[in-house]
């Protein structure tokens, strides 16, 4: 999710209005179906059965995002081996809004909490809840599958998410799929699930 590291500075400093951001040189690339693709600079790979766009901007060092219509409308993010003491994604304000960190001794039940708390802080929202949680096999490892819903601060779009994750040798591997609850979540759910199903080490 690129939006995770958008600056959240709520000061109405007048002069900042003229600072017009130019579109980033993105380097989005096409993912063709049928070919195995290594993701998130890790040993994790998926084999898409339909085409996707890979976004040039990364949420964090060991993560990457795929999308169909733009990350605000559908967002599959891969986390490949977030290690002990690392955060899920880049911190915007490390001193005042530090993100929670992975611990190599985390229980599988701690994974949804890590995501929830990271989002609360990074997106500045209290409107997030973890809904269902169940054990699952993820990339051949014992892991957890959970669903969640959230709304970002300053936005009124209800969003839903579904994630699969596992701790492997003390590192967190995870695939999340997020989209607006209205129409978009259901629309790409099957394709996103196929990606997660195909995950392998």
């Amino acid at each position, binding site marked *: 999710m690129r939006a995770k590291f958008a600056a959240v500075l709520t000061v109405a400093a007048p002069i900042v209005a003229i600072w017009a951001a130019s579109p980033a040189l993105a380097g989005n690339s096409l993912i063709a179906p049928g070919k195995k693709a290594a993701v998130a600079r890790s040993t994790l790979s998926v084999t898409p059965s339909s085409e996707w766009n890979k976004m040039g901007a990364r949420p964090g060092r060991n993560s990457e995002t795929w999308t169909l219509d733009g990350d605000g409308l559908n967002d599959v993010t891969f986390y490949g081996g977030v290690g002990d003491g690392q955060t899920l994604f880049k911190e915007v304000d490390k001193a005042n809004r530090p*993100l929670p960190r992975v611990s190599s001794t985390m*229980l599988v*039940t701690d994974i949804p909490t890590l995501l929830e*708390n990271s989002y*609360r802080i990074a997106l500045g929202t209290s409107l997030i809840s973890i809904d269902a*949680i169940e054990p699952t096999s993820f990339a051949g490892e014992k892991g957890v599958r959970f669903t969640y819903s959230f*709304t970002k*601060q300053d936005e*009124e779009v209800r969003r839903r998410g579904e994630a699969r994750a596992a701790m492997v040798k003390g590192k967190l591997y995870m695939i999340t799929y997020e989209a607006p609850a209205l129409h978009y979540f259901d629309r790409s759910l099957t394709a996103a699930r196929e990606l997660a199903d195909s995950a392998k080490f």
Partner: protein
Amino acid sequence: MMRMRALAATAALFGFASAAAAAPKGADTARPPYAQAYEPTTVDERGLWQQLDDAERQLRDSKFVILDPALNDYVRGVFCRTVGDERCRNVRIYVMRNPNFNATMAPNGMMEVYSGLLLRVRNEAELGAVLGHEFGHFELRHSLNGFKMKRISTDIAMWGTLLIAAGGNDPTRFQMGILSRIFAYNRNQEKEADLKGLEYLVSSPYPSAAAANVWERLMAEADATAAGRKQKAQHSYAAGFFADHPTELARAKYLRDAAGKAGDEGDPAAAAYRSALDKWLPAFLDDQIKLNDFGGSDYLLQQLAGDGWTPDLLYARAELYRQRANPRDLVSAAQFYQEAIDKGYAGAEARRGLGLALIRSQQGEQGRTALREYLRMKPDAPDASLISTLVAD
């Protein structure tokens, strides 16, 4: 408008004079006259109001608004008791789900109160102090003045930057000077609103001494946050260059001085406040715990437990410690969960937290026992199937 400002200034004088003369407690007759719901007349004011009317429309439909009528009525009641019926009549209050300590009031009469504020004040008097401060901005019509001041200053800043850049000098020094003027203006406004809020308290059933307490605790919480993050505490008497508000230390001092002069008394209504918040406390505590601020959250919990550790507070503390999860934290967490259970914490979650804390601190057998109890109490829990796998090991 000049007439309005003169009226407000006179009102302020009158209000303070009556406070110094120790006006009778709680009598609304002691309050200065209030010009009715103000209609904007100058072009600037109408512009800002219109923006806000669209904004209020959005606010009304926002998912972040807490709709509970009981809570809304209660907050409104405290506000009206603080500023008087005449003033509170046309104000619309929106309680927002947001863990930060904040309340804002817009020039069109809409007020937002964050749940983080409700979590931190300990009685009706303290809540009234903060809401009164916000209404003070409104009555003194600060928003627009601030807006105008910013416009003039940024114009100067822009010109200055260009000239200096053209001349090859360092533009940042000049820039800083202008910014300091903008923010200094805001600092004065904040102090005015503080003192206005105190006036309201003096005329209300609440003790004005409550105002200073809020800031003192906020400072202590910030210090605790910093300590928890192994950072230096930030407080100094003089406001830092970029501080929009006078520092909490300065505020606490002048508020305490002013309250001392007023010499009013009253019932801060702590028990009534706790009772009104009871239903929402677990949710607000949850929002706070999840902010990854161990020091600040632990301080807050200890403050709230001043009159005794309730099951809800113990549960929250246990969650906090289990979250940080240093080895000793897990032992403490287990202890707090057990205490909560012993004191009658009703929810099955306490067994869950206890079980997980024990398992993670190498006490697997006891941990699994607790988890089994969790599953027995709540077989349809959303994570029942996952917890079952931990029990089976």
